[in-house]
């Protein structure tokens, strides 16, 4: 059984009648509006969390609501409501339309299904793949494994969560899109103690697939081994150096570099408004030769993937930087219209209760030709960073940071010792021009990324091959 009370849903069945949607839409959209849509969402989520060897927290939530939107020029009117009765929907429509001058109403449009896109993930509740007892057993097994790996493991925290969002989008022209989005996540973190000194390590993974996946392969066990390894490694970590030096990034999750340094700065809203350091740089060199960066929302079962974005546009593989030259921005419908371009399928919202913004999906750099060993050997004195915590960027100045959670000091191409977590800081428009070697080992992250923008969180992916950056500021304490 699944925990949440998920009514048997025919996925083509709306929570509101077609007739109601038609009248809400025509009430909402004056003749002068450029665009507008209704976004209906029904989401269920479940979470089990283990600590002190016991599944202590079991929770579930069910949410549904409507977002109504009217666009005119650079302006947008939004209304969000949790009530789906026709009176509340009409009120929402009236609030959204205040942005456009009142004018003649549009005649009602016929609502018609848009042609379906290829499905990138299964449209069913991922919680159904692993029942409650199995999930409990999984977390208990991971707890025991962590404790058996090393006697210094003092605390184990494990959490398995799933969500399933059923989305319906009705556009101004009556085009009607549906997407059913599963998302799962498994997280493990441990506290280790040695001679009174405590450290922590954590690991996670997930994507748009059934929870069943966690019971099948060794993925869950690998997360435990990684969390314990990181925590023990950090017990022996030395102070990180402070100053500017060469840095080698490992493959996979360090792709957060691209997300912060490049990705946000290429989002259409900032570039249309001229507030990004990348504004007006289309066609210019922003990265070293050989560097190609893509944002690809079409990879099967990835955390950042979507069949259609939250405006109903099919996602695609967008080339942002090709051989070092800036070639594209990430666009939603409004910014695309204002910039005279087509949406790139990057219009996203956290939920019906948030406005659409241009956002990333899965952002990564294509593989180069260097062997990872050669790249590490080239490092005379510097940092080799393999795992990271979070990052952040100021898109106007281009300054970005990301913080190591597994990093080593390297001399003469040889790893010397692990170093404590340090923030690396650079400028987005400069950092990729300082890349001198690109590995042949592209990896995508394990499915843990969450991107924050304008107070909204959406799941994303990143990826990177091993990369050498000749100069980056490392924020350690050892000056």
């Amino acid at each position, binding site marked *: 059984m699944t925990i949440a009370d998920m009514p048997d849903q025919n996925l083509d069945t709306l929570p509101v009648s077609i007739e109601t949607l038609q009248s809400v839409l025509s009430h909402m959209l004056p003749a002068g509006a450029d665009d507008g849509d209704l976004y209906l969402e029904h989401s269920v989520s479940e979470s089990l969390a283990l600590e002190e060897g016991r599944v202590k927290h079991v929770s579930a939530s069910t*949410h549904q609501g409507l977002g109504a939107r009217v666009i005119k020029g650079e302006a*947008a009117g939004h209304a969000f*409501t*949790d*009530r789906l009765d026709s009176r509340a929907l009409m009120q929402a429509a009236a609030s959204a339309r205040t942005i456009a001058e009142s004018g003649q109403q549009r005649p009602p449009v016929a609502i018609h299904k848009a042609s379906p896109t290829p499905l990138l993930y299964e449209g069913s509740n991922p919680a159904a793949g692993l029942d409650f007892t199995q999930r409990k057993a999984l977390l208990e097994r991971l707890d025991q494994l962590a404790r058996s790996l090393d006697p210094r493991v003092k605390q184990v925290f494990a959490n398995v969560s799933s969500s399933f969002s059923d989305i319906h989008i009705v556009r101004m022209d009556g085009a009607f899109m549906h997407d059913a989005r599963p998302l799962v996540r498994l997280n493990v973190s441990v506290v280790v103690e040695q001679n009174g000194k*405590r450290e922590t390590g954590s690991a996670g993974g997930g994507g748009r697939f059934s929870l069943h996946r966690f019971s099948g392969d060794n993925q869950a066990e690998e997360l435990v081994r990684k969390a314990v390894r990181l925590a023990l490694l950090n017990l022996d970590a030395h102070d990180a150096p402070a100053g500017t030096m060469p840095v080698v990034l490992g493959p996979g999750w360090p792709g957060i570099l691209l997300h912060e340094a490049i990705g946000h700065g290429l989002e259409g809203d900032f570039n249309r408004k001229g507030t990004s350091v990348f504004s007006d740089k289309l066609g210019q060199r922003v990265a070293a030769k050989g560097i190609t960066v893509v944002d690809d929302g079409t990879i099967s079962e990835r955390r950042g993937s979507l069949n259609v974005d939250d405006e109903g546009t099919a996602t695609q593989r967008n080339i942002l930087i090709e051989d070092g030259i800036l070639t594209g921005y990430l666009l939603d419908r409004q910014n695309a219209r204002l910039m005279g371009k087509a949406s790139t399928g990057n219009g996203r919202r956290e939920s019906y209760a948030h406005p659409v913004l241009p956002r990333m999906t899965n952002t990564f750099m294509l593989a180069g030709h260097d062997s990872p060993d050669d790249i590490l050997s080239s490092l005379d004195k510097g940092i080799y960073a393999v795992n990271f915590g979070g990052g952040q960027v100021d898109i106007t100045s281009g*300054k970005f940071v990301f*913080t190591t959670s597994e990093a080593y000091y390297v001399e003469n191409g040889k790893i010397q010792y692990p170093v404590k977590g340090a*923030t690396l800081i650079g400028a987005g428009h400069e950092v990729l021009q300082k890349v001198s070697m690109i590995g042949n080992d592209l990896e995508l992250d394990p499915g843990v990324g969450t991107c924050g923008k304008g107070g909204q969180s959406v799941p994303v992916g990143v990826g990177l091959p091993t990369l050498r950056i000749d100069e980056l500021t490392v924020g350690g304490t050892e000056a």
Partner: protein
Amino acid sequence: MSHSDTIKSISGHAERLVACARAAGAVYVDALAVCDTGDSVSIRNGAVESVEREDAQGMGVRAFVETDRGLAFATASSSDLSEAGLKRLADQVVAMARISEPDPDAVPPVGADHPNADELAAWRARYPDQHHGWSIEKARDAAMQCEEIARNYSAEISNSEGADASFGSSHVAYASSDGFAADYAKSSASLSVSVIAGSGEGMQRDYAWHRAFHASDLKTPEMIAQEAAKRAIAMLNPGSMESGRTTVIFEPRTATSMLGHLIGAINGRAVLQERTFLADALNQSIFPDFVHIEDNPDHPDGMGNRLFDGEGTRCTGRNIIDAGRLNCFLTDRYTAKRLHQPETGSAMRGLTGDIGIGSSNLIWHPGRQTQEEMMATIGNGLLVTEMIGFGVNGVTGDYSRGAAGFLIENGKIVRPVSGITIAGNLKEMFANIEMVGSDLTWFGSSAVPSIAISGMTVAGQ
């Protein structure tokens, strides 16, 4: 619906949800119902860029059932407030609790130190349910004025990210199966603006904001506009600085993060889980003796006022840091029981999920020196006005964050710096506080002065 109708309606929901869960087989239950309405208008380049209207509702329930191995519980939430929705949620949470793992230490919602009826009435009299004082039109005019003043502040202001005026009301009702039921309403208004100085790769963006219970208590649009514009201009043409050890002055805007790190580190849950560098620091001097920090749930300037917490426990003020000494951990009922510490009424409740722990209004008592006097005293150092990133390890206290601000030489600001990091360890940073400024500044539910910390490592050139 009027405020009082809304309160009546959501109080009814919370109490009915408790009754439904009892009927479904729960022994102990507590429930929350919330109803939020909010509006916002944003203005960019003198025109309305967006209007938003939110109408949100929801309810959450925590239900305990008796099993042959003790009490087990679960939490669940829903936005469907219909009678059928209430019943479905109650059935669901009880079914979930039945298959949960019993916890011998579980603390059900019974026997809590609830405020009594007189206290509830006195609180309502002191903090009446007042309107935020704004309409869409008034908010739009304030944002319009603020953005215009910021854009026209000087020729160096080159672009705008817009001004935003938001206002709304939040109604919350709590009910417990031990008979306690209470509700409150809070309204607030806020105004913010963000502008850009300079051009191309030399652009600098900065912002200013203010939030208050009533629009008439907000800083004026001029004050907010001028602060944002001045800040952006002051950061033009930043350089780096030499790596090394130095004294860092955090202005109030960045010093609030120190309060956040402290509160995270004395969270009872983190202490219980040994996930904090202050797990063994109770009753120890962790700051110099001139540092005093209080958690005050009843302060006329604070946005974090509350009579009771997310478990219905009475909130009482306390000095968290008294003359440098750590006086208490913050607890909900469960962590208080496990740690054998007093209940501090610090449970923070979402509709579903784990109960969190947090402070009400945090006030870092000011010192005597102005920021200028602090700079004169340290001679050489760094004034940090902006920080970026999340480089704090709560278990060890290791600290490394991106920063921007101004280089201080011979007691005076000489030039802006950016693209640097500041690093240290929070335990040492707390102990190395040299001075606390007189410039106490409120940010919503926390008030903090400038703080000077010696011995931090800057990484730059």
